[in-house]
C-alpha cells in the first residue's frame, strides 16, 4: 500500500513542479523576504523584528497559496483530463489515490517553503544586520539576527499549518470545481485563523445580553469544526517572547488528527463519486 501511495505522491510532485504558478509564487516569496530589508531600514531601531515578521509571513503565505492554487485543482484535473481512469483501473484504491495526491502536494510545498525558509534564514543571519567594520572573514557575513529555537519551531509549525490547509484543499478538490474549492479553502483558512476569536465573540454577546442559546450553540459548533490554525502560529514566540509554549506536542497531535479526519472525509466523498 505504501508503495502505491508513494508512486502517486511522486507523480503528483513531478506534475506540480511543472506548474508555472509555483515558480511565480516562489519568486514573490523571495521578493518579499528581500523587501523586508528595506522595510527594516526605515523601521528605526527594530529592523530584525520587521525582517523576521516579513520572512515568516512570506513563508506562510507562499505555502498557503500553493496549497490553495495547486491543491484545489489537483484531483479535479485528473478527472477532467480523464487520467484518473488509467490510475484507478490499476490496483490503486481511491483512498490511496487521495493520500498519495495529498503527500505529493505536501512534498511540493515542503520543497518550496523549505527553499524559501533556508533563503530567509541565511538572509536573516547574514545580511539582515548592520555590518561591523572590525569583523573579518566569516564574522563579517554573520552580523544578522540569531537563529533561535523558537524561530525554527515557528517555521516548522508554518508547515504544520499548511498540512492542515492542504488536507482541506484536497477534500474540496475531490468534491467540486477548482474555483469553488479555492474559495471554500480560503474561507476555511480565514475562519481557522480567526477561530480563537469565536469564544471571545460568544463571551462578548453574553456580556451584551444578545446571546441566544441557538446562536451560541451554532457558534460553538463552528468553533469545533473549523481548524484552530492560530495555535500553529508561533510568530509571537519567535519574534517577541523568545520562548516556546509547553504544549507543542499537543498542537502537533491536533494538526495531524485534523488532517487525517479531513482526508478520510475526502476519501469517503471520492469513493461515492462517479465519473
Amino acid at each position: 500500500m505504501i508503495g502505491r501511495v508513494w508512486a502517486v505522491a511522486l507523480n503528483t510532485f513531478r506534475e506540480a513542479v511543472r506548474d508555472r504558478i509555483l515558480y511565480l509564487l516562489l519568486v514573490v516569496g523571495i521578493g518579499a523576504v528581500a523587501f523586508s530589508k528595506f522595510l527594516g531600514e526605515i523601521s528605526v531601531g527594530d529592523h530584525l523584528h520587521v525582517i523576521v515578521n516579513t520572512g515568516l509571513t512570506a513563508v506562510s503565505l507562499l505555502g498557503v497559496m500553493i496549497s490553495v492554487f495547486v491543491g484545489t485543482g489537483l484531483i479535479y484535473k485528473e478527472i477532467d483530463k480523464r487520467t484518473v481512469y488509467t490510475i484507478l483501473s490499476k490496483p490503486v484504491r481511491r483512498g490511496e489515490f487521495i493520500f498519495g495526491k495529498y503527500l505529493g502536494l505536501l512534498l511540493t510545498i515542503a520543497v518550496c517553503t523549505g527553499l524559501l525558509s533556508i533563503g530567509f534564514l541565511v538572509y536573516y543571519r547574514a545580511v539582515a544586520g548592520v555590518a561591523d567594520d572590525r569583523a573579518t572573514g566569516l564574522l563579517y557575513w554573520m552580523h544578522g539576527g540569531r537563529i533561535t529555537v523558537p524561530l525554527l519551531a515557528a517555521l516548522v509549525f508554518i508547515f504544520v499549518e499548511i498540512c492542515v490547509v492542504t488536507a482541506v484543499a484536497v477534500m474540496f478538490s475531490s468534491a467540486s470545481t477548482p474555483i469553488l474549492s479555492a474559495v471554500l479553502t480560503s474561507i476555511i483558512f480565514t475562519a481557522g485563523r480567526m477561530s480563537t476569536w469565536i469564544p471571545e465573540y460568544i463571551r462578548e454577546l453574553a456580556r451584551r445580553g444578545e446571546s441566544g442559546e441557538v446562536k451560541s450553540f451554532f457558534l460553538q459548533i463552528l468553533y469545533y469544526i473549523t481548524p484552530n490554525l492560530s495555535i500553529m502560529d508561533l510568530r509571537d514566540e519567535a519574534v517577541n517572547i523568545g520562548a516556546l509554549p509547553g504544549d507543542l506536542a499537543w498542537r502537533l497531535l491536533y494538526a495531524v488528527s485534523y488532517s487525517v479526519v479531513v482526508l478520510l472525509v475526502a476519501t469517503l466523498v471520492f469513493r461515492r463519486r462517479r465519473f
Partner: protein
Amino acid sequence: MPATASAPAQSPAALSCRRRRGLGTFFILAAMAAAFLPVPFVCNMHDPRRVAGKPDDILYLPRGETLKYMTVGYNGVAADITWIRGVLYVGRKLSHRDTNYEWLEKLYQVTTDLDPHWTRPYHTGAILLSALPQDDQRALSLLSKGLRNNGWSYEIPYAAAQLHLSRGRNREALKYLRLVRATMEGYPVVVGNIIAQLEKEGQDYERATRTAAGELQRKDDRVVRAILTSTYRETIARLLEVELTAANRHYARFRGRPAGSVHDLLSLPARGKSRAVRDGLIQNFTWALNGDRQLASEVIARLPGDPFGMEFYVRPDGTVHSRGIERVELFRILKTVNHFMKQFRKARGRPARNQQELEEFVRVLTRAGKLREGARKFWGPEVRLPPHPCGPKGWSLMRVGRDGLFAMPPGPDMEKIFRSSYPVPPGPRERKRRARALSRDK
C-alpha cells in the same frame, strides 16, 4: 494533415500581424497610464484637505481591534507597517516643522493592539509622545498598557522611569526602577546605581546604602564597580553622619553635653539596656550592608575615618559631619558656581566682587530666560547660592583667586579622595575566591 503540421510554424505575415497587435496593446496601455498620471495632481487641485498642507486630515486608520480581524492572524506584519507609518509620520512632521502630532498616539495604540508583545512601540513611542507633543499623560498610559501586556520586559518601566526623571518626578521614577530591579532581567547595569542615587537624594540613606552594597555584591565588572563604589562611599558617609548624630544625642542624655569628638562618642560604653555606641553602629550597619557583619565591623573600625580618607568631626551643635563628603559637595557646587563666575567676567570684564554681585547677575540671566533647567534648579526660585556644605559661614570664608574663580580650600585632591582605600562589599568572583581560600586553609 499538412495543414495541422504547418500550424506551429507561422508565416512572416502572421508574425508581423501579431507584432502589430502587441504593439497596439502596448500603446493602449501606455496611453491609459499616461491618462492616469495627472490624476493625483488634479485631486490635489480640487481637494481642499490635500492642498491645505494637513495630511492628518486624510489619514484614516481603523481601530487596532478591527485591523486584527482584517489581517487574518498576520497582525505582526500589519503592526510593522503601522509602526513604519508612525516613523514616516514623525519624519514628515519634523521636516515640515509642524507641531501638531494629532495622530501619533493613535498610530502607537494601533501598533500595540496589533502586536501587544512587541515592546519597542511602547517605550520608543512613549518617549516620542513625551518629547514631541509633550503629552506625558498619553505617554504614561501607553507605557502602562505595555507593562500590562509585557510584565517581563524591563524596557517599558525603564522608559517610564526615564520619563519621570526628565520631569523631575524622582519618587515616581524610583518606583519604576525598583520594579525593574526586583522583578526583571537583563536591565542596564546603571539601574542599581540610579536607584541608590535617588534614594540618597531622598535622604533615605539606609536604603541607598543597602541598594549600593547589594549591587556591589552582584557585580564583577571593574567599571561598574568603580561607579557603584563612588555612590556607596557617599551613601555610607551620609548614613554614618545620621547614625553618629543620633548617637551623639544619646551621649548628651547620659553625659549632659554632646561629645566633643567622634573618638569621645565611640568610647561611650553600654549602660542598662542600651548597647555601647560601637556595637549599636555595627548592628545597624550589618542590616544596611545586607547582613555582612564583618564588613560592618570593618566600616565602624575605621571611625573617625570617613569613606573618603578624611575624618568625621562634631560641630558645636552636636551634629556629626564628614569632611570628605563636604569636600566632594563643595567641589560639585564650585564647578557650577565657577561656570557662572566665568560668564560674569566675560560679560562685565572683571570678576564678581562678592556673592551678592554674582547672584544679581544670575537673576538677570534668569529674567532673560537664558538659564537651562538644570541651572535653574541649582540656583533655586530665589536665585541664591546653595548653602555651603561646611556651614552657614562657609561662603564668607571662600576666597576668589587671581583667575576670578573660587578656589577649593587646601586639602587632598578629588582623585585621591575617590581612590582612598575603604572596605567595599566583594563581588561574586571575589566571594568565590575567598571561599576557596577559606576551604584551603581548613
